[in-house]
């Protein structure tokens, strides 16, 4: 049972962080399909930063270094999406898809280069990141995640920045007419998504295992987060609950064989993996009429449009 709780917490935090990132981007009007790629790059740079820390560094220093490196890398990578879709009016989905493909390839090149061998597998110690509370193992990202959830809610709904950001995603021309810089707001939205996506990537890779093969990227976690965001209707707390729901099934897929009750059902890992995707399609089908998607998402901002 503790195992289930542990994995559910772990995946909840990952999916929530990345989905919140996606939310900021989409609320500002930019579809961020590149979340998967951002996670890969963030995770990779975070792991490398951790490995580059001197041997005697304190656990806190290692955590801070890895997390900030991941956040920074994610942000820089997201800037590529922002540049293409905001400055050059490129198709956001295509730009994002290209960045996803680039991320996996680039990660393998970097990981192999870092290893100096033909293997894209990086080994590391995750001790600085995990804490034991009796039988329950909790990782540092749980606390980061809760803080970011509360902060996201506050920023999005209680600050001027959040209001402006949301306005740009709903009706950028109207926002512009009252003096809001749409380009700047959209940049902020995408860069925040890069930061959260990067941290999410590290949170996905580090806590559970002590080596990661970058050949698999983050195995679709970014796309799952995209589903979490839609399931959560682009709202912070709903995203949290959606993340819990998705995480529960994802953890069951991992540990089904070690829990007698679940094992007796005879379901395979693939079936558990499938459920969140099917569930989100069903929910989407029933809620599509009153979808809360930002109205202007995916549309390049054209100052002259009426």
């Amino acid at each position, binding site marked *: 049972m503790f195992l289930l709780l542990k994995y559910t917490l772990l995946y909840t935090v990952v999916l929530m962080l990345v989905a919140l990132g996606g939310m900021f981007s989409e609320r500002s009007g930019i579809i961020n399909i590149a979340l998967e790629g951002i996670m890969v790059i963030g995770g990779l740079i975070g792991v490398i930063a951790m490995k580059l820390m001197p041997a005697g560094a304190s656990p806190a220093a290692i955590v801070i270094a890895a997390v900030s490196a991941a956040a920074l890398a994610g942000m820089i990578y997201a800037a590529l999406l922002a540049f293409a879709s905001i400055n050059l009016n*490129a198709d956001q989905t*295509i730009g994002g898809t290209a960045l996803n*493909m*680039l991320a996996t390839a*680039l990660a393998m090149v970097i990981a192999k280069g870092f290893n100096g061998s*033909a293997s894209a597998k990086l080994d590391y110690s995750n001790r600085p990141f995990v804490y034991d509370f009796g039988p329950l193992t909790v990782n540092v990202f749980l606390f980061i995640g809760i803080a970011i959830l509360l902060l996201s809610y506050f920023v999005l709904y209680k600050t001027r920045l959040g209001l402006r950001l949301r306005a740009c995603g709903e009706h950028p021309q109207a926002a512009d007419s009252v003096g809001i810089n749409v380009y700047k707001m959209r940049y902020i939205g995408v860069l925040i998504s890069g930061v959260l996506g990067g941290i999410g990537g590290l949170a996905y890779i580090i806590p559970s295992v002590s080596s990661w093969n970058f050949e698999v990227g983050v195995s679709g976690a970014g796309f799952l987060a995209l589903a979490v965001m*839609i399931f959560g209707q682009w709202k912070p707390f709903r995203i949290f609950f959606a993340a819990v729901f998705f995480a529960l099934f994802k953890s069951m897929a991992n540990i089904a064989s070690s829990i007698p009750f679940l094992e007796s059902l005879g379901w395979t890992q693939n079936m558990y*993996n499938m459920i969140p995707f*099917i569930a989100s399609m069903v929910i989407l089908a029933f809620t*599509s009429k009153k979808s809360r998607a930002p109205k202007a998402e995916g549309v390049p901002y054209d100052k002259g449009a009426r």
Partner: protein
Amino acid sequence: MDKNKSFISRLASSEGFLSVAASLICIVIGLLLGVVVLAIIEPAHAINDGLLVIIQSGLKSPRNMGTVLANAAPLIMTGLSVGFAFKTGLFNIGAAGQYTVGAFGALYCAIVLQLPWYICLLAAMLLGAVWGAIPGFFKAYLNINEVITAIMFNWIGLYMVNDIMYGKGASPMYDLQTTKTFSLRKAAPGSMIPSMGMSDLFGGTKWGTASVRPLESVTIAIFIAIIFAIIVYVVLNKTTFGYELKACGFNKNAAQYAGINDKRNIILSMTIAGALAGVGAGLYYLSTVAEWNPQVSTALPAIGFNGISAALLACSNPIGTVFSSLFISYITVGGTKLSTQYYTKEIADVITALIIYLCAFSLLFKNRIRGLLQGKKRGVGIGKGGEA
């Protein structure tokens, strides 16, 4: 006005010329950025052991050429799939999922049912079509973006196919020894796409010498793919049906007003796109380029996503897709020939991805070229012409 100038201005207004020029610019910049990446990793070898290997290897020997062709055939199909959807205003990011279920259809009919290859190909096509129709249905009747549905069904398809093919290790399709599906060469030779001498033609390791051993993965698949490209071109450009589909893509409301059934057309477009991707999987697995590995359940087949690259590079033109697929396949094979002492093969993927990133703003390149050709006088105020 002299003749020369009118020729240039004709070029400037030719959408086809501008598209080709923009794609070539993307390729050149992509390759240059690739050199930068190579130089960062190992500066001394960037040109001779890096770039030149990538852009020359494909032609070095018949075997390499054969590998390029074998990998290009399925890529042409997924490229056509994505391109067809683009032409009708839809983004088929689901090609990877349609390809996956198509692969299942082909392999099931081949290994379990031992059917002839064309029936297997048909099964791949049908399953791909079903998987493509789903996002179309969701788009037409529930107004859910096809990108979202397609992404979800990519993963649903992947997990489902893996589950059936593995069957807890007891599936009749799963070979415990290789941890992959059974090789058709042994398990179902009757279901392989005929080679018609292609395997021997591309068997040699040096030009001009006879085949050492046949390269079995080279079959008539490449010709099948080219025939499909021609069919798609004719349907899109020479038939009323294709015109209606494109009209929906340009402006759904106008098409509706003109009496075109837009809901039906959206579903049909996605169904056809899915069928094309399914055929791609059939061509790949029935040519035994590789076997399916149901245990690696974490990755969707790359050919599905590379189809997006092929379509974008060709500006969705079906005939152009043949060339862009050959090009992508060519540099991918080039990447595998890089000396592992200095570089890894994924550099070729980096270059492809960079080219696609650049393609995302090929419209900008197009307008630039147009501006340059037309000179300053007409270069301004062109606005956003052309299609996506």
